[in-house]
């Protein structure tokens, strides 16, 4: 499903102008990463997608729904949002109930709900933890519960706010797998991340925000090639991109495969 943002501005009640005119189209089925300095407005931007925040000016269309006149409850059927901090999101007594909460509220049939819950638990490798209270799990696994409880809603758009924070290598691989699966299903995925290597390995399109504005928007390889511009919003290019540049490669490399291919020549 398509997301269309038109000259979006947002001022917090404190007077802080967090978004200063953002226009953006994210096509159906696109996988987009949003990067940028702390306080650049990344979370503020995506919180508009499911109506948690309402624009001070401008508009957001989720498919054909204008977020200004659509309730958060209704938007939840189109936009799934995984919070940065799982503790802001989880409330059920056990993992199974938590993951079931979303699809049940969307009014899916029992069979469909069961199937979606099963799939979400399998993808996040939580199948053996359905009876555990989410708060008895480590922060890592709680993050997985947050992920599962959103992907079980089967929304056409899924938003991840810093999914890899505090996760180890295995867990990051698991998240990458979830995103690949959503891509295969044709979902639109928007991910905020500071993990630029993860970003390079999993996303085709990258948007860099800086002080409430779009600094760069385009194909990942193009964005990562612009080291000086990225530095304006406190982002370093991926490790292998930096290495390739230091070695004098003409092309911008993003991952191991591209790097080794050039090295072999």
């Amino acid at each position, binding site marked *: 499903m398509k997301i269309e943002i038109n000259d979006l501005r947002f001022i*917090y009640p404190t007077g802080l102008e967090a978004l200063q005119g953002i226009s953006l189209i994210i096509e159906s089925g696109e996988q987009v990463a949003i990067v940028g300095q702390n*306080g650049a407005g990344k979370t503020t931007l995506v919180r508009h997608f499911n109506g948690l925040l309402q624009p001070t000016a401008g508009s957001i269309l989720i498919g054909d729904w204008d977020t200004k006149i659509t309730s958060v409850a209704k938007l939840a059927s189109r936009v799934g949002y995984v919070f940065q901090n799982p503790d802001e999101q989880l409330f059920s007594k056990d993992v199974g109930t938590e993951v079931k909460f979303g699809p049940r509220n969307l009014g899916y049939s029992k069979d469909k709900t069961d199937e979606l819950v099963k799939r979400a638990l399998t993808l996040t490798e939580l199948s053996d933890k359905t009876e555990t209270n989410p708060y008895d799990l480590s922060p890592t696994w709680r993050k997985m519960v947050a992920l599962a409880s959103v992907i079980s809603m089967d929304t056409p758009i899924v938003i991840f706010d810093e999914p890899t*924070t505090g996760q180890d290598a295995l867990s990051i691989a698991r998240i990458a797998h979830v995103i690949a699966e959503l891509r295969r299903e044709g979902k639109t995925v928007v991910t905020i991340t500071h993990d630029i290597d993860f970003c390079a390995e999993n996303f085709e399109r990258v948007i860099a925000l800086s002080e409430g504005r779009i600094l760069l928007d385009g194909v990942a390889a193009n964005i990562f090639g612009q080291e000086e511009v990225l530095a304006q919003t*406190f982002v370093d290019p991926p490790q292998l991109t930096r290495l390739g540049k230091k070695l004098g490669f003409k092309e911008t490399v993003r991952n*191991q495969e591209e790097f080794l291919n050039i090295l072999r020549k």
Partner: protein
Amino acid sequence: MAFINLNNVTYKYPLTKTPALQNINLQVNEGEFVAIVGPNGAGKSTLCYTLAGFVPHFFKGEISGTVEVAGIDSSKSTLDKWVLNVGLAFQNPFNQISGAKYTVFEEIAFGLENTGVPRDEMKPRVEEAMKLTDISNLADRSPYSLSGGQQQRVALTSILVMRPKLLVLDEPTSQMDPIGTREVFGVIRKMAEGGMTVVMVEHKMEWIANFADRVVALKDGQVLMEGKPNEVLTSELLVENGFGVSRYTSTAREAKKQGLWKKEKLPVTLDEAVEGFKK
């Protein structure tokens, strides 16, 4: 004698069956910057809590062995005395911020207020600490109105301002932007050079290798290996045990198989990778 002395420390949280830490022996010298790495569930945060005195004083549970910092045995001390020597920045800043203060400035002063630092001394110390971590511009904001990364800087600053002899950091940069992360590592390095002892849990191998003196790898509550950053972070043992490695290390390891990396030692940092890959 070492500044931190953990002797055969085994610890079990209440109501759990397996110990979170098992027979940990760790010595850290004054002014040393030690990084702790390990997969989730390895016991990294528990080790931080142990150094900070929360284990066992706050979390209770069963502890054996001895924990000594600055020559004081933790079991014979109390938390209100312990905090004068040891500061801990939490993994999740949301859990650390007091909730009792309206502005970032007041939040950072909170620890000083509670330890009875005179008012005249407080203000310049808070200002200096905020300058160090580059958050002076956030002084009048509410801690809860900040982004995750900004909040994390506030959490770190509110510990630095206490000038602890031992600084314990549990993934202090997890929500920070990449260049901000590098800067914070630089600040922490500087603190260590000024004599502060630092123990820091982190996943960011490139910056650990650039800034830390020593790395301790934890797995299942035990020390798997320890040593110089390059030695530990390029070890096959880490790969076998599900640890993350820097892309320089993983790519050079693959390149070595294909005959494209000629050196014996694998790289962890950009400089090491450039050195080995350049023609």
